[in-house]
């Protein structure tokens, strides 16, 4: 029996191709993956290499945790040297605030519920209650709209303010200090000034940083700020663009475009937005859409005249040819 030819491999109308390619590119958000990994007890074990008491251990752990985590290691390493506290707090902010949207179902908003519908993972459990007392701020808004406050303690209060939902209460008989998922004892984090609040959640975060290489971008992390952009988001961004890159490498620019659309939709103002723009210009140019490519390249050169990619763009679409 001969194998039938797949619709995407044969002559298929544009609509069918579009929907099927979209389906192939679909996937869980990075946050969904992290939550699942933690809930399944698969995440925390990846940080078992630790034990140091310095805040920089975050970088070290991530660096050794996974080959796929190299990029993250770089970012986290840099962060650990320079702004360890900030990174830690950002992570604290990410997780617990996301917890607030946990009640799933019936809200119809796709993007919001996609990440919100997960079973509440025990990830946030180790947040010490002491942190909650530190800052009497009202609960932060759901993750998608969380602004940029990088002050220590923004997240713990939001978590503390979260009433014990059924899921959290029943699923996490975890005392705040028990942290059974952590393979390592909570490292004493004297280096970090917001020490008790920041360090354990950072550890909990660390495993997730080892997974994104197989993860699609994080839908719910679409907040365009740079400061909240965590290593995992960067990783997710990288993997999102990898799809487009590999499509271009495979001389399949048509496949790169939906991937770039997906990237833009998930990471508006993302850290790799300039590269995404360049990839789009390349794809359009390869597809023969010279006008679109030119228009985008003009916009790009205007916005990023000194970007490292600018030369590539100029070479691709000579400015002289601009009408």
């Amino acid at each position, binding site marked *: *029996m001969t*194998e*039938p030819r*797949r*619709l*995407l491999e044969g002559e298929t109308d544009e*609509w*069918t191709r*579009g*929907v*099927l390619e*979209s*389906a192939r*590119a*679909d*996937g*869980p958000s990075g946050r*969904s*993956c992290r*939550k*699942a*990994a933690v*809930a*399944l*007890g*698969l995440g925390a*074990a*990846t940080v078992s290499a630790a034990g140091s008491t310095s805040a920089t251990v975050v970088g070290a752990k991530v660096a050794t945790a996974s080959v796929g985590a190299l990029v993250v290691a770089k970012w986290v390493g840099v962060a650990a040297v320079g702004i360890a506290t900030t990174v830690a707090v950002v992570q604290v902010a990410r997780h617990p605030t996301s917890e607030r949207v*946990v*009640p*799933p*179902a*019936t*809200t119809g908003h*796709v993007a919001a*519920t*996609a*990440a919100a*519908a*997960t*079973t509440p*993972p*025990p990830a946030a459990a180790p947040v010490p209650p002491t942190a909650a007392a530190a800052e009497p701020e009202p609960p932060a808004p759901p993750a998608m709209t969380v602004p940029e406050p990088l002050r220590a303690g923004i997240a713990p209060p939001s978590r503390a303010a979260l*009433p014990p*939902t*059924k899921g959290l209460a*029943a*699923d*996490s*008989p*975890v005392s705040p200090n028990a942290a*059974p998922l952590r393979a390592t004892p909570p490292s004493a984090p004297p280096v970090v000034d917001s020490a008790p609040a920041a360090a354990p959640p950072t550890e909990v975060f660390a495993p997730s940083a080892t*997974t994104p290489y*197989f993860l*699609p971008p994080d839908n719910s992390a679409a907040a365009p700020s740079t400061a909240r952009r965590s290593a995992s988001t960067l990783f997710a961004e990288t993997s999102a663009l990898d799809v487009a890159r590999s499509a271009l490498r495979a001389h399949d620019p048509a496949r790169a475009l*939906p991937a770039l*659309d*997906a990237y*833009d*939709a998930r990471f508006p103002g993302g850290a790799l937005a300039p590269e995404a723009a360049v990839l789009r210009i390349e794809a359009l140019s390869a597809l023969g859409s010279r006008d679109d490519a030119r228009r985008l390249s003009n916009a790009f050169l205007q916005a990023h005249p000194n970007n490292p990619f600018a030369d590539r763009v100029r070479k691709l679409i000579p400015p002289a040819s601009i009408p």
Partner: protein
Amino acid sequence: MIELEVSPLRAVDVPRPEAERPVVSTTARARLRAMFQEHFTFVWRVLRRLGVAVQAVDDAAQQVFFVATRRVDDIQAGSERAFLLSTAMRIASEARRAGALARELPHDELDARAHPAPSPEQLTERKHALEALDAVLDAMPFELRTVFVLFEIEGLSTHEIAALLGAPRGTVASRLRRAREEFEAAAARLRARAAFRGGAP
């Protein structure tokens, strides 16, 4: 918001992560981690395309892996994906019966879900495409939908699908044929209506 916490699917039997996670050996855990890394996205996507609602799919995907965790010793090396997939199909089908899934939609509703004329530049294009696809898939009988999703989207061979379903390859091939016919008919309907309303599909 708390009362919304329990989704229909969860009510069926989403295991409680802390309470029921079985103790597994280090080896098994390593294996589960590998399975997770390799197949979680795949499982999630299959569940989604088999009709698990977006707000339930994360739970459902976790549930698949909870089952794998409980039965890790029974999963033969090399058949991890098949195990996960058959579990996913069972869970999708259970969830469907439990009403957590999109129902099979009458055509009017299918039409209502078609977004008129999103420009190609729109960033929401992919989302619209997926909504349209799901509307079309929702109109298919489950067994056709399964074959269609696995073959056309996930790229499994008919041989693999036959093994998974425990059905002869000929059955798979004929289901695929029928699924394609249904797909094309539903897609044509969707597009015709979208065009009638003045937009491209």
